[in-house]
């Protein structure tokens, strides 16, 4: 007999795909901030953004799909 119980979807912040995209976006923004020639303040906060993205990427890449 076919199982008709609806499959419970994980919340957004526990799914690998979307969270990996968020982390990737953070890394990309941090990277651009680090090398951009427009504002020193963006350069100042680039490491925090990069680090947040990288740590997030390492964590969420272990989440199930």
């Amino acid at each position, binding site marked *: 007999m076919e199982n008709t119980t609806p499959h419970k979807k994980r919340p957004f912040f526990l799914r690998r795909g979307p969270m*990996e995209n968020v982390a*990737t976006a953070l*890394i*990309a923004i*941090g*990277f651009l901030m*680090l*090398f*951009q*020639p427009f504002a*020193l303040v963006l*350069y*100042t*906060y*680039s*490491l925090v953004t*990069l*680090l947040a*993205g*990288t740590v997030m*990427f*390492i964590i969420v890449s272990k989440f199930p799909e």
Partner: protein
Amino acid sequence: MTDTDTSLLDKAAEKAVRATPAPLAFRVRGLSDRAIAWLFITPTIVLLLAINIFPLIWAVHLSFTNFRANRPNAAIDGVGLSNYQRVLNDPDIWQAMQTTAHFVFWTILLQMLIGFTLAHLIDRKFRGHAFWTTVILIPMMLSPAVVGNFWRFLYQPQIGLFNYIYSFFTGVDPSSFEMLGSVALSPWAIIIVDTWMWTPYVMLICLAGLRSIPDYIYEAAEVDRASAWRQFWSITVPMALPFIMLAVLFRAIENFKMFDMVVLLTGGGPGSTTEVASITLKREAFESWRTGRASAFAIILFVAVFGLANIYVKALNRVKQR
């Protein structure tokens, strides 16, 4: 294998068994497959920890201190995040980052365009293609020290061949411009040398990608009357894309660390026009002797490259799954 060979091998094995010291033989006999596997990989792991991981952890530790390598006996005090704050608020370091980004962008763009074009030409297997492949690969095989000195002579305004060739095509007086001494031209002088030296490497990776495309796909496209242009954009580029991306990743990581060529050609000058991040880092560490701050700077660069590599590996996996 003949009986004589088998008996010879048995004899050699017996000899080896007899030559093994009794305590060692006894120890080895009692080991499981897993233990033997660990026995083999342990030296590599120990070496990796000692050479790669330990210096990294030590640099992270130093980045939070006021340590100076020229005063090894002075007391080391923790300074918290102060080194990071200074590096991230220093306009000179910010400028060096921009210079690095400029180099990375242009060298990769040029190397990819020329490298892929060369690979595409070599892949056509014309007469003498093996010889030309070897000739193209020569710059990559040279030492950066040799290449740096060699190009310094080529860029000489009085005797350099580069200025003469340029003047031959444009009519400009050869001694009217100086590639290494001009603020506007010196960054391009380094970009030209790096492109000359590393385009063969990119070509080699792209060639591997092009050679991995099976011929029957092109044959099927021919049957469907697809034009050469259409075949290039719909077959060649998508199928060689993982290789192109790999080449970009390798070159980007290498060029963020570009040091030797810049030191040999311009030394970071004129002024600080070609002072890339690695040169600023070296000056902080070994001229100003601010080891703690230099470590913080190195860690920032490491995080940037590590983050970039993460994105890249993800993109590469997606392309492969397609």
